[in-house]
């Protein structure tokens, strides 16, 4: 007790994740998924059961006889994450276990395309689970194929010439339309904001949905060291809006609050030029993306009032 620094308690965000998220997983350098796991582990500790459909994470956690996460993990077929999570939550309730949280952890393909039916079913039944969609905006695990969450203008191996021409599917809006108790968007660049949202989700019963923006270095064609910078730019340009929806009210999260004013937003070219997948983008498509951003903010303003 000599040095005053030693008396300061460790912040829970990295300290509680120590020993739960283990090093040496098989993720690519610069992968956002272990960053998100550290936030999850600091909130729930090892008292969580992750239900993971086919996605990058099922590879990252490693193969038998080891796994890089000290928590319960169930690997399930692609379309069934929300259905299995509902079943596990019901089984825990029957056994009287209340301190363990069931979390469905799926990619954008397993949520917006293939898992949409079971997700919608679980949301409608208001099952007591947390569903986290980490959004790397394509099927990265199988080789960068287009998904419905791929943004407009992005190159993928299945949209090789012009890029994707349709705008991104907004799953958070779909979940708000289901009338579930809690819906939030989060970003890998703001782990403390994500932590706050998970803490809030932990205190609520019922179906909770979090849409997490997660830039993928090999899939988006950028240097692995810029993962956090690109995720932050997505928020600063207004392309990715951080908000939470609870009790029928939409609240803008602190990192996104300054960007309600369009003049404070950075130009979206700054976000696009860092990524190789937008190399062939045309000025018309940039204009279309800009219009899409404006309409998203209009919707936010309408929901807030």
């Amino acid at each position, binding site marked *: 007790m000599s040095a005053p620094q030693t008396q300061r308690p460790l912040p829970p965000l990295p300290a509680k994740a120590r020993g739960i998220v283990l090093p040496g997983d098989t993720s690519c350098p610069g992968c956002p998924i272990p960053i998100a796991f550290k936030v999850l582990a600091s909130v729930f500790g090892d008292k969580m059961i992750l239900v993971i459909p086919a996605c990058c994470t099922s590879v990252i956690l490693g193969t038998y006889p080891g796994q890089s996460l*000290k928590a319960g993990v169930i690997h399930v077929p692609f379309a069934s994450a929300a259905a299995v999570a509902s079943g596990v939550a019901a089984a825990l309730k029957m056994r009287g276990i209340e301190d363990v949280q069931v979390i469905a952890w799926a990619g954008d393909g397993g949520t917006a395309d293939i898992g949409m039916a079971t997700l919608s079913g679980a949301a409608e039944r208001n099952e007591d689970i947390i569903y986290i969609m980490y959004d790397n905006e394509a099927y990265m695990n199988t080789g960068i194929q287009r998904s419905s969450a791929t943004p407009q203008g992005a190159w993928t191996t299945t949209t090789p010439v012009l890029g994707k021409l349709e705008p991104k599917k907004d799953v958070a809006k779909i979940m708000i339309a289901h009338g579930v108790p809690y819906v939030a968007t989060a970003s890998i660049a703001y782990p403390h904001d994500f932590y706050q949202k998970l803490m809030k989700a932990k205190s609520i019963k019922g179906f909770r949905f979090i849409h997490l923006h997660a830039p993928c270095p090999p899939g988006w064609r950028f240097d692995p060291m810029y993962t956090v910078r690109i995720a932050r730019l997505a928020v600063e340009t207004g392309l990715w809006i951080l908000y939470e929806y609870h009790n029928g009210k939409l609240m803008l999260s602190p990192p996104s609050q300054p960007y309600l004013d369009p003049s404070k937003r950075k130009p979206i070219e700054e976000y696009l030029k860092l990524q190789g997948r937008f190399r062939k983008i045309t000025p018309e498509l940039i204009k279309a993306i800009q219009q899409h951003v404006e309409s998203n903010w209009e919707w936010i303003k309408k929901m807030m009032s």
Partner: protein
Amino acid sequence: MVKVVPPVDNAKVPLTKPVEGVGGKTGLWRTMYKPVVDSSKCTKCFLCEIYCPGVCIVVDPVKGATINYDYCKGCGLCTDVCPVKAISMVPEE
């Protein structure tokens, strides 16, 4: 309450166990550069530990950040998120 039947003794249940280094020593993936912490500049803000995608940085409130080179994949993300530029990539010997 449901009665739960535990598995039979010595039964081989194919369950995975949490281990360090499930993908081998991922430090071998580093190609040219490795991150080095300048402890005189480090302000112990924990940002590198929060963001490290390899989960191989541990920040001590007194000693500062230490990097586990057995598993560091050399992505360089810590150099980008460090607010005081205390981490730099140096060529590997």
